[in-house]
């Protein structure tokens, strides 16, 4: 029983990370109808920048804020420089540009921070919390707390603020949004920034447990996308669910089956959902209008 609980805790930890990355995918998808293949690289940037700001002598909370804000700015910049100029938002070209962007971001990190893994101290050091025989690392609590804050913040942003309403309107119909005076293009930039910031937050929160390196983005990108697709791309809340489910599946597979299947699981989930139910398991709809 304690074992199962431990697996669940581990699954919810990884799942929260996947959820944040998946949220980034859905936000960009909602605003542009495209997948940002560079999303994983912002996760990498979050950790890398966090380490760098700490090495400059900033206290952890300030460094964390700086890292997330810088990554968000990088996301906005990327959208302005590479995605916005694409005429008509042709999805094929957005795919290629974001793939190119992911390569460039990864190489940039390699040139700036070197090939070796970098370390970040736990936000609050100390022994784990005990719960019915299972242990919860303090950093895991941080990961959960930050995920919760991000999700609640996002919900409030979307439901309660003018900005959020504009974002939602844009995602429903870009031309209609323009009619009511919303600058749809600014909303797209904002969505890239928001997605990058969420990815960076995930990368930052997990670095004290895993270290980080220039090449961690691609792998987490696939996991985050699998989570997003599991939830159905159109729906942010379902994406969070998708992330948690994927994390749990992986953890239980590593616990009760062979960990070899762990990587295969997200890939199989990805392919199975894409092939059998592209609109996602947890609702949402991505059906193209004829």
């Amino acid at each position: 029983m304690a074992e199962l609980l431990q697996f669940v805790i581990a699954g919810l930890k990884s799942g929260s990370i996947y959820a944040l990355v998946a949220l980034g995918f859905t936000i960009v998808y909602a605003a542009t109808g495209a997948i940002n293949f560079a999303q994983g690289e912002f996760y990498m940037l979050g950790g890398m920048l966090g380490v760098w700001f700490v090495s400059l002598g900033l206290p952890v909370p300030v460094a964390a804020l700086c890292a997330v804000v810088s990554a968000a700015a990088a996301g906005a910049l990327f959208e302005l420089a590479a995605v916005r100029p694409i005429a008509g938002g042709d999805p094929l070209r957005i795919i290629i540009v974001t793939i190119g962007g992911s390569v460039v971001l990864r190489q940039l990190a390699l040139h700036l921070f070197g090939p070796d893994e970098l370390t970040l101290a736990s936000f609050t050091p100390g022994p784990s919390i005990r719960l019915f025989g299972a242990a919860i690392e303090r950093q895991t609590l941080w990961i959960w707390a930050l995920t919760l804050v991000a999700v609640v913040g996002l919900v409030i942003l979307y439901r309660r603020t003018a900005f959020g309403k504009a974002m939602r309107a844009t995602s429903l119909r870009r031309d209609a949004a323009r009619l009511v005076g919303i600058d749809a293009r600014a909303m797209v930039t904002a969505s890239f920034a928001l997605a990058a910031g969420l990815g960076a937050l995930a990368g930052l929160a997990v670095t004290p447990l895993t270290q980080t390196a220039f090449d961690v983005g691609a792998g987490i990108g696939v996991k985050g996308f699998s989570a997003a697709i599991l939830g159905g791309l159109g729906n942010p809340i379902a994406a969070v669910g998708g992330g948690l489910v994927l994390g749990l599946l992986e953890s239980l597979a590593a616990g009760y089956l062979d960990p070899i299947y762990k990587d295969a699981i997200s890939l199989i989930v990805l392919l199975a959902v894409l092939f059998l139910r592209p609109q996602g398991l947890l609702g949402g709809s991505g059906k193209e209008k004829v």
Partner: protein
Amino acid sequence: MRNARWVVALALVVSMTVGMSGCGAQGTQGDSKTAEPIKLGAVLSLTGTYAALGTAEKQALELESARINKSGGIDGHPIELVIEDDATDEAKAVAAASKLIEQDEVVAILGATGTGQSMAIRGDVDRAQVPQISMAGGTAITQQFDANVFQTPWSNTIVVPFVLDAIKKSGVSQIALITDTGGYGKDGKPIIEASAAELGLKIVANETFNPGDTDMTAQLTKIRASGAKAVLLWTAGKEATTIMKNAQGLGMRDGATAVPFFGGSGQARLEFGEGSGDAAEGFTFGTGKSLVSTNWGPDSEEFKVVSDFAKRYEAAYGQAPDIFAGHAFDAFLIVVNALKAAGPDADGAAIRDAIEATNGLVGFAGTFTYSATDHNGLTTEDLSLYRFAGGMWEPAE
């Protein structure tokens, strides 16, 4: 008619390519008349993931070849070192080896830096009958035996029994194993299983993880529940840090439920100690004695070789050599030793035979004795135990 200019332009490009290729061919043939240098090739990762390792190796090789040439080379023939960068990429390693063999006609290849790259070039090495001395640690390099391929670092085949022996001596009989599914751990796992059976150690939990995994709590939970009295971690990846942190989170690093952790050469990395912090406190691993040169004893020949090299290296580059520089030093030493025996005119096959006859050659990593069945050449005598304290290793005894 407007297309005529394109035809002309294409013809120009074609003739340029052909001309350039011709020059390239001439360039390599032109300068062999003046002296008769012995050409040694090196395939190193000067860029990409292993850039730091390859750069240290390059420095060691250049340092040592300059020293040999200053003292008259091999019977008056200078050594010409041709270094190629494989960019930590297997396809490029193949091309680099190919260039060294086909274009530079080297008599031996030092390298590569990484295990994958070392494995990748053996096809060319075999076909050209040129010996290869790898500086990478992967057991497969000499375990998947190839008559032309030798290796200088301590291999899993000696490190595993050494570490297991240490575990046994600490009074433990039930161990848990956690290995990666990438190259290093996958290599080590069968060796550990066989060796443990031989020593009478029982593996009560046998877990694996994938490179890139960010949480190993599930595996460690099972290990904790297995009743193992020691955990052997076999990986060279950054995930080792995550494992130690997860273990600490599960209470396996301190207090009543603490379990000793052991490892191998893969943990002789500063990033591991630094990243794991107090989670790795007391972590014991086995690897070469040369990690701390005083291990050898002040009067030993090994100490002299290691400290002389360290002095020269530091004088030339302003920093102490790391073990990768040391492994390159050994590779160069072994080839030079074989060249002295086989003569400056020896071809690849003769040099290979001479390398295989290496006996009792003292180098950085220890004493090399190759044979027709052993192309790693080191023994457990060349190993030592280390323990992490305050994020840095120190001799365990």
